[in-house]
């Protein structure tokens, strides 16, 4: 065990460019014990970077996801994980056993089989987006016009959110996933989303549809009040993360075309980019030792999944995109009881998006040099702001 105090490093660290996690992560993984950092909020935290340690942090019952515990780290300069008082039903901020009621109620909706049954509907959405791309000309911003619209439409259909409200919920979500948003902006976006979903739930109480919100209302395990936070969480998590994954993956597959249509590429892309590196925040509720480091009760912990997914002791040549490796032990979706509920939906959406896009627009190429792509350094989630592409006008 080490108790040496090191100079705290800044957080979040900057990704040096496509696609690698911050170069410092490699040093941190080799460092004895853990590395101390300070969040933009001024709160000191322990950064966890080794694959094994990240998995331990995400499963140790002495480590909590609940922001009501003293010392819970606030991520951004302002704001952070909402408490149950702020957003009732925001179940990622609950520990077992309270968390289990939400998880158990929701998992039947996201099983491998359920998601497989959604494939034809997802295929239709993807095809319609590509029809629109082709009809509009031979250039596009593939983020706005495809990578974001596909998962937004998929999660809207699942929840029963009207398509016309897409611009609204995408804009509010963008505020919440931008690190530089102010407290006031964050609070107003949260309140607007809650008001909106509250109204939607009331409508569904009167006129139930064939959608997840209506099914949860009928089931009753999740209360009417909690349903606001649950649907907000699913709506946000359901489009932003997938959008970033689809966008980044297109760039990689353009230069690695032999992997188009291979499901292993999807798994490797999830590992390679680890877009949700800055998502998990935890606090120790008892003294606990992680990776040879004593963490005192009340100290904040940030398990960095991109660091874990580029741990060379688990993944050979971790900074290479190599779908032939077995990437399945990646923690891009987290680990432990909070591991992404929608992960199978993400996989299927990525798979269908790539297959269809490259088969229907085989001359697709970047419209700017890859070095000029605008990366989301200001985001909670890593990704691209825009993805300018073009294709031969004789397509279709």
């Amino acid at each position, binding site marked *: 065990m080490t108790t040496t105090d090191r100079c705290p490093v800044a957080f979040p660290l900057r990704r040096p460019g496509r696609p690698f996690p911050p170069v410092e992560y490699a040093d941190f993984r080799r460092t004895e014990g853990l590395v101390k950092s300070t969040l933009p909020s001024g709160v000191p935290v322990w950064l966890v970077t080794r694959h094994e340690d990240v998995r331990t942090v995400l499963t140790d019952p002495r480590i909590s996801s609940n922001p009501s515990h003293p010392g819970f780290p606030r991520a951004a300069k302002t704001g952070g994980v909402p408490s149950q008082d702020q957003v009732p039903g925001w179940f990622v901020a609950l520990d077992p056993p309270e968390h289990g009621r939400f998880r158990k109620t929701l998992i039947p909706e*996201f099983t*491998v089989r359920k998601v497989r049954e959604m494939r034809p509907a997802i295929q239709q959405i993807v095809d319609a987006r590509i029809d629109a791309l082709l009809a509009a000309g031979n250039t596009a911003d593939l983020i706005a016009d495809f990578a974001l619209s596909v998962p937004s439409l998929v999660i809207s259909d699942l929840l029963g959110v009207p398509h016309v409200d897409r611009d609204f919920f995408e804009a509010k979500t963008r505020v919440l996933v931008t690190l530089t948003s102010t407290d006031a902006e964050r609070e107003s976006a949260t309140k607007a989303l809650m008001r909106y979903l509250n109204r939607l739930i009331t409508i569904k109480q009167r006129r139930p549809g064939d959608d997840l919100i209506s099914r949860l209302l009928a089931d009753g395990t999740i209360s009417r009040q909690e349903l606001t936070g649950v649907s907000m969480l699913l709506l946000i998590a359901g489009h932003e993360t997938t959008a970033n994954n689809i966008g980044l993956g297109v760039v990689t597959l353009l230069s690695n075309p032999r992997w188009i249509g291979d499901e292993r590429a999807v798994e490797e892309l999830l590992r390679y980019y680890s877009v949700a590196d800055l998502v998990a925040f935890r606090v120790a509720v008892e003294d606990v030792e992680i990776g040879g480091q004593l963490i005192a009760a009340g100290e904040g912990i940030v398990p960095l999944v991109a660091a874990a997914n580029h741990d060379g002791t688990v993944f050979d040549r971790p900074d290479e995109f190599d779908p032939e490796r077995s990437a399945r032990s990646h923690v891009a979706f987290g680990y432990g009881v909070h591991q992404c509920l929608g*992960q199978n939906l993400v996989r299927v959406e990525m798979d269908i998006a790539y297959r269809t896009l490259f088969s229907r627009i085989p001359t697709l190429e970047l419209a700017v040099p890859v070095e000029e792509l605008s990366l989301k350094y200001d985001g909670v989630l890593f990704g691209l702001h825009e993805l300018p592409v073009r294709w031969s006008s004789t397509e279709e």
Partner: protein
Amino acid sequence: MVRISVDTERCVGAGQCVLSAPDVFDQDDHGIVTVLEEPADEPARDAARQAGLVCPSQAITVAES
């Protein structure tokens, strides 16, 4: 030979076992892990071991016997 046991109380329904070893594991109507059949050959045993390693809630034990 391997012996597979699952803890349905621990299971969080991520479905990673079904993706890793679809011949061995399935999810029931509640999304909870169930064992379809004991792995019959070495590739299936390997897949089951892999499922045990990636299970996020450590609900799967694959004991060598």
